[in-house]
């Protein structure tokens, strides 16, 4: 009967209940949508980093190779023998490994015969290119980072192993306009020149096949994606900069990295394993998410504060109006904590009803906003991305728990302090 009474009490002052409910609901919608937006951004950046930037869920470097490869690549490359050693260690994780790949990175100059501009290249094995570009996660969360022709890259490599993909901005710098597929054959041919791993100058011919985007504004003027073997030729090596491990179950990344590093250490193997969200692996992901989480934390604090104050205000008024009634409850034997719980039940009812309404309204907003297909270019991101919202079940459950806890605690504390009054004072109080 206490829950029933608490529910009925909501209708005593309908206007105040509606106002408080609206505040709770607005807070719920705000947090749900903010969380939904951050969730979409996180999934997009994650997919971009893991699949399109070719970092994998777990990345293996030669020991200290992440930090020192650029200065002494020949010392910190993964030789075929190193790669075999790593593959040996990965056997025990075979059930969770979708596939593994190798990548080589480097810089140099791309020349159209007249003009040379610098590039930052990533060479990736064909299997990784094929699987990454068409991966369902990419299609679902990071399709904004795919150019129209980037999906044709693997086909182009199979037809011509010297095919490369460059960003539209790099193309423009060497007077090649997208779509590159429409370029005459002579304009597709370029030369890549660079210092090989042993300090000698080397050059290879390449064929501009398709365009892609790096996703990062800073890298967009120099982005070049090449077949692994082509870059091996350019840098005169049979090794790789790093190996990528793509997992079936993402939840096991941390455990796997930790176990791998432990194994490498115990067996004196000169390798380091990193998760994709290490700042050295995915600085864009880490930086963007760090900013978003800080912003979200600030908004969560503001919204929770506003909701808590609304509850405090509503309950304080409710208690003032019902002081004598509370005195009566005390007189007939109710303990203060029982009365506090009674008032808390009232606030919880309000929270649940507002929350349910909030979820419905948030869902409507999500459908409308996503339907409008609003695109924008976030700072530091090269591509125009769609402003996407989503409602994530886990997030809604988490927000619901936070709100129930917040509302419950706030209301319990408010009533608890008021109930410290003497019973005679409560009974003689005429209320507000």
């Amino acid at each position: 009967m206490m829950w029933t009474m608490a529910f009925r009490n909501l209708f005593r002052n309908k206007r105040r209940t509606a106002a408080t409910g609206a505040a709770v609901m607005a807070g719920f919608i705000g947090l749900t949508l903010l969380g939904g937006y951050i969730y979409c951004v996180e999934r997009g950046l994650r997919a971009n980093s893991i699949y399109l930037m070719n970092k994998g869920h777990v990345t293996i470097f030669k020991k200290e190779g992440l930090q020192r490869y650029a200065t002494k690549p020949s010392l910190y490359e993964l030789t075929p023998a190193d790669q075999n050693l790593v593959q040996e260690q990965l056997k025990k994780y075979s059930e969770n490994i979708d596939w593994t790949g190798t990548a080589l990175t480097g810089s140099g100059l791309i020349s159209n015969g007249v003009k040379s501009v610098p590039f930052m290249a990533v060479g990736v094995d064909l299997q990784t290119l094929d699987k990454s570009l068409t991966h369902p996660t990419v299609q679902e969360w990071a399709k904004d980072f795919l150019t129209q022709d980037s999906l044709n890259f693997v086909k182009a490599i199979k037809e011509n192993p010297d095919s490369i993909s460059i960003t539209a901005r790099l193309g423009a710098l060497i007077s090649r306009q997208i779509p590159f597929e429409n370029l005459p054959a002579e304009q597709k041919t370029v030369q890549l020149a660079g210092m090989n791993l042993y300090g000698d100058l080397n050059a290879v011919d390449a064929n501009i096949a398709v365009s892609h985007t790096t996703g990062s504004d800073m890298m967009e003027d120099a982005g070049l994606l090449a077949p692994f073997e082509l870059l091996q030729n350019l840098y005169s090596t049979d090794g790789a900069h790093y190996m990528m491990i793509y997992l079936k179950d993402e939840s096991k990344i941390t455990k796997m990295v930790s176990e791998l590093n432990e194994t490498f250490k115990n067996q004196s193997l000169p390798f380091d394993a990193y998760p994709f969200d290490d700042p050295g692996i995915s600085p864009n992901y880490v930086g963007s998410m760090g900013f978003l989480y800080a912003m979200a934390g600030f908004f969560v604090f503001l919204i929770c504060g506003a909701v808590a104050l609304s509850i405090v205000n509503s309950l304080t008024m409710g208690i003032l109006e019902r002081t004598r009634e509370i005195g009566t409850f005390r007189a007939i034997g109710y303990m203060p904590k029982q009365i506090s719980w009674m008032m808390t039940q009232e606030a919880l009812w309000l929270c649940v009803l507002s929350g349910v309404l909030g979820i419905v309204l948030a869902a409507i907003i999500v459908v409308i906003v996503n339907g409008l297909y609003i695109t924008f270019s976030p700072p530091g991101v090269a591509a125009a991305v769609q402003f996407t919202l989503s409602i994530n079940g886990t997030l809604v459950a988490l927000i619901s728990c936070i709100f129930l806890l917040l509302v419950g605690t706030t209301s319990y504390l408010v009533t608890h302090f008021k109930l410290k009054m003497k019973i005679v004072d409560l009974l003689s109080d005429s209320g507000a």
Partner: protein
Amino acid sequence: MALVKLSGVKKSYKLGETLVPALRGIDLEIRAGEFTSVIGASGSGKSTLLNLVGCLDQPTEGSIQISGAEVTEMNETQQCDLRNEKIGFIFQSFNLVPVLNVWENIELPLLVKAKLSLDERKKRVASVISAVGLDSFIEHKPDQLSGGQRQRVAIARALVTKPSLVLADEPTANLDSKTAHMILDLMADLNKTQNVTFLFCSHDEKLIGRVGRIVRIQDGVIVE
């Protein structure tokens, strides 16, 4: 043994910097089954006396025993239990919960303790509703009842826990004289038939003839 025993009870209220004595040393015994009225002018201390007996307030000095137990030495939980199990309250303004119907209002004191079964609760509520003659009003909310009916609900709520003592603070003050007499008759009848001990205060001298014992209080002391 006396059901209620007050010895040397004093109560003072602080009004700014000064202490205002409300009770100046009360010695009183109420035996089980008595129908007692505390009579006195407004401000004489009769409500204070009832509040102290009902454990709604603490005396400044003195001893209060109910069924032999010293209530001034009880902690909050013990006092709550005592109020719930042994004392029933009837208030001048009825103090019913407006969102609950007659049945639910009466059932309220039984919900404090989970030890009563649903069947037992139903039996007790039905019994007291019948005793106060409100069988056909169980679904009514307080605002759908007359003043007399509301006070009957309050009486039923006070009786539902089968208390040893029912305290009523000016139970007829908000009622017209005809209804007041009906309520008093009901209380007197319950006192006779169910042997419930009533202690109520009133300033209405016209009611004096209807009670078994009168305690007259004046300026915080019992004068008769």
